[in-house]
Structures are given as structure tokens and as C-alpha cells.
């Protein structure tokens, strides 16, 4: 499109500034985490791994890390098949009630998280799921489901459903034709959905603040309480690691393998 020169310059400068605003805060944590200083400082006066050692050497942080990773893995293992099954049903069926089910499955994205958190806290207290691993995993499955459903539903939209029909007309039963014909073709969106559920479980804080306790507190809950009291540079090390893991996973989720491979 044609644009006047001054307009183009203004646009480029504005974009550069806004992108800096978005990116700098994320990048600034990493160099700070390698600082040898007792307090957060930038640029770091000298480099060291002391805050990483502090993190690895602290049993409370390590326990929280184990909880976070366990919860995230279990969340993916449970939420992915449930989400795939639901997305498949939604995309196959023209039944009107399926639209309603689809909307219901997206509710965790719509209801303000604090309301969900307080509500679950209340229900868990009644049924004895508060401060348990089961309770934590269930809540994260709920929060991760919309990501799987959205991702897989999008994948199924570009998949030609008649292929499965052909497989069935050739004698495969429904289940087999799904696993042999459909699943391999929507695999990238299934993997992406699972990864987003993993990241969502790894980052989830607010629900965990209310329903987790004792030895089953994820990293984010401990980080949040630590941040309320003082700015401990150990958190810079943890943040850097968390960000690195997130970015690696997103890279995997968004890089689609070439077709026909």
C-alpha cells in the first residue's frame, strides 16, 4: 500500500517502541538471575550461579517444582484425550445440543478466574479435596480443556471427514478408522493442544492459591507468596527457567512438521 514517508516513519517508530515495551521486561529477568549481588540489580555487577544454587539447594522450592511438573504432566495426560474426544464429537455431530456443549467447554476462559477459584475452594472444602494432589490436577484439567478443544476443533475443521467414511466403508470399525485415518492427520493440533494445557498448568497461580496447601503447593503459589513479602533474586532464577521451558514448548507446538513426512 502506498503511504507517505513521514507516516511510514511514525508507524515504524511506534511499533518499535511498543515491541520494546512487550519484550524488554521478559528479557531483563535472565541477566539479573545470573547476578552475584545480594539484591536485584541491572546490569549485574558480576556473574554467578548463586541464585540457581539457592533454588536447587532449597528443599521447599524443589518440592514445589516436583508438584508443578507432576500436576502439569497429569493434566496433559488427562485433558488431552478428554478434549480430543469432545472436539471430535462437536465437529462430527450437527445435533444442536453440541453447540451448547461446545460453549460450556469454553466456560473456563470466560468466567473470571477468581470466581472459579473461590467456588472450587468452597466445593473442595465440602468434599475433602482441598490441599490434595487429586484436587489440584482436576482443577488444572478443567482449566486446560478449552485449549485442547479449541486447538483440536481447529485441526478437525481442515480435515476431510469423508476420509474416515471411506475407511469405514472398507470395513474398519469406527474406533480403528479414527486412530488409523483421522488422528495421524490432526496430530499437530493434538500435540499443540496438549502443550498449551501443559503451559497453562505450569503457570496457573490463582486457583492454586486457594485450593493447594501443605506439601502439594506448586511453584507459582510459593513464588506468589514470596513476592508479596520481598523480592528474592531466587525467583529471577526460577522465572528464567520457567520462561525457557515455556518458549521451548511453544516452539514445538507452533512448528508444524511438513506434510507427507
Amino acid at each position: 500500500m502506498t503511504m507517505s514517508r513521514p507516516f511510514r516513519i511514525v508507524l515504524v517508530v511506534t511499533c518499535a517502541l511498543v515491541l520494546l515495551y512487550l519484550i524488554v521486561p521478559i528479557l531483563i529477568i535472565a541477566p539479573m538471575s545470573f547476578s552475584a549481588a545480594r539484591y536485584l540489580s541491572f546490569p549485574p555487577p558480576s556473574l554467578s550461579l548463586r541464585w540457581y544454587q539457592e533454588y536447587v539447594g532449597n528443599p521447599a522450592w524443589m518440592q514445589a517444582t516436583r508438584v508443578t511438573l507432576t500436576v502439569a504432566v497429569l493434566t496433559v495426560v488427562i485433558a488431552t484425550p478428554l478434549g480430543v474426544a469432545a472436539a471430535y464429537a462437536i465437529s462430527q455431530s450437527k445435533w444442536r445440543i453440541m453447540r451448547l456443549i461446545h460453549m460450556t467447554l469454553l466456560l473456563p476462559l470466560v468466567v473470571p478466574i477468581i470466581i472459579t477459584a473461590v467456588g472450587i475452594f468452597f466445593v473442595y472444602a465440602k468434599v475433602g479435596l482441598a490441599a490434595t494432589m487429586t484436587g489440584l490436577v482436576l482443577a488444572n484439567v478443567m482449566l486446560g480443556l478449552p485449549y485442547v478443544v479449541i486447538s483440536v476443533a481447529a485441526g478437525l475443521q481442515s480435515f476431510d471427514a469423508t476420509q474416515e467414511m471411506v475407511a469405514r466403508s472398507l470395513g474398519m470399525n469406527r474406533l480403528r478408522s479414527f486412530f488409523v485415518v483421522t488422528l495421524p492427520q490432526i496430530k499437530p493440533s493434538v500435540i499443540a493442544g496438549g502443550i498449551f494445557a501443559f503451559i497453562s498448568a505450569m503457570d496457573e497461580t490463582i486457583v492454586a492459591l486457594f485450593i493447594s496447601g501443605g506439601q502439594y503447593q506448586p511453584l507459582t503459589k510459593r513464588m506468589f507468596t514470596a513476592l508479596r513479602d520481598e523480592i528474592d533474586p531466587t525467583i529471577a532464577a526460577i522465572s528464567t527457567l520457567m520462561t525457557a521451558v515455556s518458549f521451548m514448548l511453544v516452539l514445538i507446538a507452533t512448528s508444524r512438521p511438513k506434510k507427507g513426512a
Partner: protein
Amino acid sequence: MSSPVQDLSVLHQRREQRLMLALALPALLVILLLVVLPVGWLAWQSVYHNGFTLENYRRIWSEDIYWRSFALTFQISLLVTLLALLLGYPIAYAASIAPKRWGIIILALVVLPFWTSVLVRAYAWLALLQRTGVINQLLRQLGLIDEPLALVHNTFGTVVATLHILLPFMVLPLYATMQQIPRDLMQAGASLGAGPMLTFWRIFFPLSLPGVLAGSTLVFVLALGFYITPELLGGGRTIMISMLVSRNVELYDQWGAASAVGVVLLVAVGAIFFAVSRFIPLDRVLGQK
């Protein structure tokens, strides 16, 4: 009268329906038990305490602290939405008209923070904005200020960090809409003698309005329910609605009051989504994530 063939197809259709329902059921159950039931319980709780009562809502209506918190939350959300639109529009516009490679780079930079933990970003902003933080240090070394500026533990810090988190939610729907605008229209405008400014304002901008509406809705509604950022960067003075809910539960053990505040927030969010869904389909607003 129905033929046997029709009977068979109806039977088949029923079986198909039951199978699909069974497939969706486990996921549906999780949502019903962990979202619908808890929220319903809260709603019940807000009006029932040894009998039906509207006392909790009367208190929200009459007590100053609730009013102030609601007003502040709406102001901050509105401000964040406007700023997001102001900063997000040029980014989305640039990404949509730039050569493909640059467009991808711009979008990648927008999405990058999207997948960084909200907690990590709150921490980053604390490190940047606190009295001994990076920005204050920098300004002092440059000799621009003598005393450190109060950039955090106030509304300013809350807005800066909230905007940082919500900006991608504005850019992505905007970009999605702008990308669909046919370039021929602008060329047609130009060939009819309109200058670049006129084609932008008369052709491009109006066609981008669905994206503006989708992005603004998403940002505004999400800002209404924000918790972590105001809690960590607001310094206890910027009490947003979410904090009101958690404080009523954690500090004062006031379940009824917390539930009522939650219900008001939920109704506000629901009403906004409903109003917007009359203009653009809701799954398009949500599907952007």
C-alpha cells in the same frame, strides 16, 4: 407413514447422537463439576443465609469500599482497553501490511510474552519499576531525577503491567480482521483519487472495526477480573474487584459478601459478552487465543 428405510436411518441417527454425547461427556462432566457447580454454589450462597436474603447485595450497594473498588476496576479496565487499542492498532496494522517475513517477526514478538507466566512478568515489572529498580537507576544516572519516582505499588504500576499482559489479546484479533480486508479495495480507492490518509480512514479503518470490537471486549473483560497484577503491583491501595473477593474470603471469612461481589462481576462479564455476541459470534472472539 414412515418407510422401514426411514426408520433405520432414524435409528442410526439416534445411535450416532448417543455415541457423540458419550464422547463429549467426560469433558463436559469436568466443566460441570468444576465450573458450573462451584459458580452456582456461590450464587446460592450470596442470597441464602438461614433463609433468603439480599443483605449481601444491599451492602455492596450501600458500603463505600465496594463502590470505590467497582468504580476503580471499571476505570482501570477502560484505561487499559483504550491504551491497548492505541498501542495495539499500529502494531496489528504494520504486521498486516508489512512484507510477509516482517509480519511474522512482528507477530512472533507479540505472541512471545503471551506464553510467559503472568507471575514472571509481574516480577519483571517489580524489578523494573521499584524504587531501586532499573528505570529509577537509569534516570538517576542520566541525571534526570534526584529522588526515585514512585512507579510501582500504585495504580500506575498496575496499569503498566496489566497492559503488558493484555496487549497481545488486542493485537491478535485486530490482526486477524485486518488480514481479511481485501487489498484491492484500497487500490480501488487510490485509483479513484483518494490519498493514503483518506483510503485508510474511509475504507480500511471501518472494515477493521469488528477486530476493534473483539479485541476491546476481550481486553476489557479480562482486565475486570485481574488479580495477580494488582495484588503484587498495586501495593494494597489499588483494590480491584478480584481482590475484594479474595479478601472477603481469606481475611474476613465473609463468604456471603465474597459470593455477592463475584456474582456481580460475573453478571457484568456475561452481559458484555452477550451484548457483543449480537455483533460478532462469540466463538470468534474467544477462538483468537
